[in-house]
């Protein structure tokens, strides 16, 4: 990793006006958490539904998409990535630095808000907060790697990422049972389910896959995506129309 790349990336992500977008969804989540507590009296199962459906199913993939396209897609679009590429640094270092910033931002703007939302909406001894903290953090690793790779591979990363997050993970998963097993969300949730132990069934936290499958799939997906991102950056075409 390279500290200068990390610093420039952070300035690029947080210094632009679109950084405000990063606050909207977490604020909505916290608002919903307050409403959930008010409506259900702070029971862990209502809290688990909020965290599992809205936080993990909608907020997390969207935030990771927003962040990942922000750390590298914007630079590729406007061409300013050339200042990083025209340097004697391995492409791997650039991608890993960008991923580190993306993950850090995902923790701040998605994982922490999820934990706080769970604590507001209802928890028992911090168990649910821990379970969803671990699950969202693991999912964030895979999502940021996937979406960073997508941003390097195509200029349509936002659209494709949205289709994945909204259609694949949310809508199709509801109708086609097979698809639900091929999902970052379910893989990450399997770890949360294990963390909760006996409480998982009672609070309605259940993943489609076992914890071993989930962890292996997360590791494989993340590594493959990071590898693809490096490969694509090595052969990124940079030419202005003359």
């Amino acid at each position, binding site marked *: 990793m390279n500290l200068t790349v990390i610093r420039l990336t952070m300035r690029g992500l947080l210094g632009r006006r679109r950084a405000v977008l990063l606050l909207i969804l977490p604020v909505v989540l916290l608002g919903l958490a307050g409403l959930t507590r008010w409506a259900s009296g702070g029971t862990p199962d209502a809290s688990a539904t909020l965290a599992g459906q809205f936080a993990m199913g909608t907020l997390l993939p969207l935030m990771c998409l927003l962040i990942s396209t922000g750390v590298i897609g914007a630079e590729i679009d406007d061409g300013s990535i050339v200042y*990083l590429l025209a340097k004697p640094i391995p492409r791997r270092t650039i991608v890993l630095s960008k991923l580190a910033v993306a993950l850090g931002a995902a923790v701040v703007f998605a994982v922490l808000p999820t934990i706080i939302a769970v604590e507001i909406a209802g928890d028992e001894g911090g168990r649910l907060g821990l379970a969803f903290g671990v699950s969202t953090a693991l999912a964030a690793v895979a999502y940021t790697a996937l979406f960073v790779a997508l941003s390097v591979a195509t200029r349509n990363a936002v659209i494709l990422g949205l289709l994945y997050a909204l259609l694949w993970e949310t809508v199709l998963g509801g109708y086609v049972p097979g698809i639900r097993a091929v999902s970052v969300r379910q893989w990450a949730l399997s770890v949360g389910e294990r963390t909760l132990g006996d409480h998982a069934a009672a609070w309605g936290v259940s993943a489609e896959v076992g914890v071993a499958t989930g962890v292996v799939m997360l590791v494989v997906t993340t590594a493959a995506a990071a590898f693809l991102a490096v490969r694509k950056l090595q052969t990124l075409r940079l030419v202005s129309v003359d």
Partner: protein
Amino acid sequence: MSTLELQGVSRWYGDVVAVNDVTMSIGPGVTGLLGPNGAGKSTLISMMGGFLSPSSGTVTLDGVPTWRNPDVYKVIGLVPEAEAMYDMVTGWEFVVANARLHRLHDPEAAARTALEQVDMMDAKDREISGYSKGMKQRVKMATALVHDPAVLLLDEPFNGMDPRQRIHLMDLLTHLGTSGRTVLFSSHILEEVEEIAGTIEVVVAGRHAASGDFRRIRRLMTERPHQYTIDSSDNRLLASAIIADGSADTVDLTKATLSVQASDFGRFVHALPKLARDNDVRLFEITPADESLESVFAYLVAR
């Protein structure tokens, strides 16, 4: 001292050929890459800078391919045409960051030297988003100079510069060239190129059309057949006088005006007023019909 070699380089995008079998060698000194818009200059510079793979042929810097080889950036400094930079940092922070990315020993001293070279020390603490086009161009230049590269590639560096900035950059490039660096810049303006470039490479429609010093290029451009449209008090009389004099190749009277093509430019422009006076013909209008740069380039290609 470094040399860029292009050997039979072509680049196509799908069915469109942007660069067609170009072979050239760019050594120390200032070289101008001259050609009309869309000639493939940016594609060539992208391939030289290692940002695009040649579809066929090789691009090497001192014998090493530039494609997929980030180590060439220890030697190459690149000034891209695109204006986008990291807008939210100051010019100083950006140039220092570039120096750090090159892992220089003293990034701040290097940034200072580079910013002094482009005369940007006064405005260095303002955010890049607030810079004028010319200032951005100079900061881009500073990022390329920060590691004191042996090879400098500039894509349309004079775009958006006012005359004072233009002269400053011309002096800087001339200085870099005479100190043994390999400087290549692209432009579509002949005057710009011939002012500072020791060698000129002309590209037209993806082809390498001509190569040489500015005198040779200038001669190629002025010695081609020149077309004029002339309107006078008696076109027919003037046409017969021009034909009798033999200073023009073809004379065309089919339109309302007189069209003349002369291959000896110097002789024709001196003969015309004399012929008009001797035959008592009054000249109303003389228009060079094809003085646009594109037609000059087209001539060079067809040659």
